[in-house]
């Protein structure tokens, strides 16, 4: 009996969580120009119009560019840091680990305006570089966490075996360690990409007038040009984000220790 109440509650909550997203997807297929209910007509025209829209396409390109760069940077820096933290004992290790996680817990507004102030001091304008820097800051914690987890479960005796067979440190890393932690690295990469791709606030604060990413474009359209093109674009990026995350989950699925 109690089980049923729990099940119903969970179903309702899941419904609550999915409803807004489903509405957007639903409306992206509507024929009407107005986003009202009931949704009449089935049409794919808004998808067509959305991707014919120069601003949207440009924003998409910008988003992908920024996110790829940010993800690569975050993954490289994060993986190196993970290796250092997991495999060494040194004073302040815990503190350092927490420091890397800080951008996650410090509100974005603070990170954003701080970075902007610093950039202005150096006479740099808001723009792609600044956005990338901000995205790397918030992507690092994810990469660090995922790769660390992978490293903690890593069997060091495999590396010892390689060295026993004649491989030096670098070769061992390349031929033994790296391939084995690669799923974790790739998983982290995808996470960092998605975090960057979907981000709003830091991007909004650092983009300046020239740079528009997809979330920013959607925001602008919500306020100034509210057409179902928004729903089409949103649906697309929802699918993109979710696919990347599911892929990341697959890659980082740990073998559960008995």
């Amino acid at each position: 009996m109690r089980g049923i109440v729990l099940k119903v509650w969970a179903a309702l909550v899941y419904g609550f969580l999915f409803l807004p997203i489903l509405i957007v997807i639903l409306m992206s297929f509507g024929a009407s120009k107005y986003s009202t209910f009931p949704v009449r007509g089935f049409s794919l025209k808004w998808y067509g119009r959305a991707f014919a829209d120069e601003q949207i396409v440009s924003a998409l390109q910008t988003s992908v560019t920024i996110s790829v760069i940010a993800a690569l940077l975050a993954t490289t820096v994060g993986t190196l840091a993970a290796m250092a933290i997991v495999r060494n004992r040194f004073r302040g290790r815990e503190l350092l680990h927490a420091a890397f996680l800080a951008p996650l817990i410090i509100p974005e507004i603070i990170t954003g305006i701080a970075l902007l102030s610093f950039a202005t001091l150096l006479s740099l304008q808001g723009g792609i570089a600044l956005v990338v820097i901000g995205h790397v800051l918030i992507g690092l914690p994810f990469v660090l966490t995922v790769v660390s987890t992978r490293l903690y479960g890593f069997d060091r005796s495999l590396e010892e075996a390689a060295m026993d067979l004649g491989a030096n440190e670098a070769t061992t890393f390349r031929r033994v360690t790296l391939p084995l932690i690669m799923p974790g690295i790739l998983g982290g990469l995808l996470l960092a990409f998605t975090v960057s791709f979907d981000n709003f606030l830091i991007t909004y604060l650092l983009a300046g007038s020239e740079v528009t990413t997809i979330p920013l474009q959607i925001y602008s359209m919500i306020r100034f040009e509210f057409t179902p093109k928004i729903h089409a674009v949103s649906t697309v990026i929802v699918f993109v984000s979710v696919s990347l995350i599911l892929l990341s989950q697959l890659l980082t699925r740990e073998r559960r220790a008995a």
Partner: protein
Amino acid sequence: MTAASLPREGAAPEAREPVAAKLAVQLGPGLLWLVAFFAVPIVLLLVYSFYRFTDGVMIETFTLENYARALHDTIYVQVFGKSLRYGLVVTLACLAIGYPVAYFLARAATRRRGLLFLALIIPFWTSIVVRTYAWKMLLGTNGLVNYTLEALGLIGAPIKMLYNETAVLVGLTHVFLPFMILPLYAVLEKIDPSLEEAAMDLGADRARTFLRVILPLSLPGISTGCLLVFILTIGSYLTPDLLGGPSEMMISNLIRSEYYVTFNWPFGGALAVLFLIITLAMIVVYNRLFKLERIVGN
């Protein structure tokens, strides 16, 4: 194969005394990035907060007027107060709504659990922009809720549900609910089900088993979830902006306005510093009670 070379799953890797050069190479980039783009800028912010702002220009003289203004003017105090209040309300709402879901998930049959978990991370990873503006579709005068209520004959004319406190709170709860459920789930899942059976065997019915065994053991998850949701809520920008309109300003909206509209960086900086202090205070309190490492579990 000797016993020593058998895989030791889950065993902590041997930590070695670091080779300084290697460590520098590995940590260098990360450390540099953090210091240059995070630590230093925040210090700069702090410095700016003590400068003057006269006639639209920032002047590099030391003053405390920004803090005085922030702490005395009712508008700003109200905004901080409102944000903290929202933080509390949303945190409690997420806890009440999310705990049963996390428990359900943790006790679900393994195959279903995997699917349900994946289902949960879909809203979690959908862009906040999409999730928030979708509520306009739901709560707007031509939105789904009004449409349904009218269709069911419960109301005659559409109710204005947007651009008020409730809309913002609902939107915030929706956005941050997964941040409560996931840490809770992570902890609840690790609780050995046989502990519940042991309690029942010793005479505790379901309610007492929950209160005496499950709840205490899930405390780390509760605290992590609450910390996350609270800090995220008080720092939210987009949701109050889209769903609340001009009357619903929260801290982030305020700071942004000072920075980008008024260009009063010193004052904006002071507000940001105060906000930072509040955030850090919460983290310190949390760290006192629970190890910070728990947050890593996501």
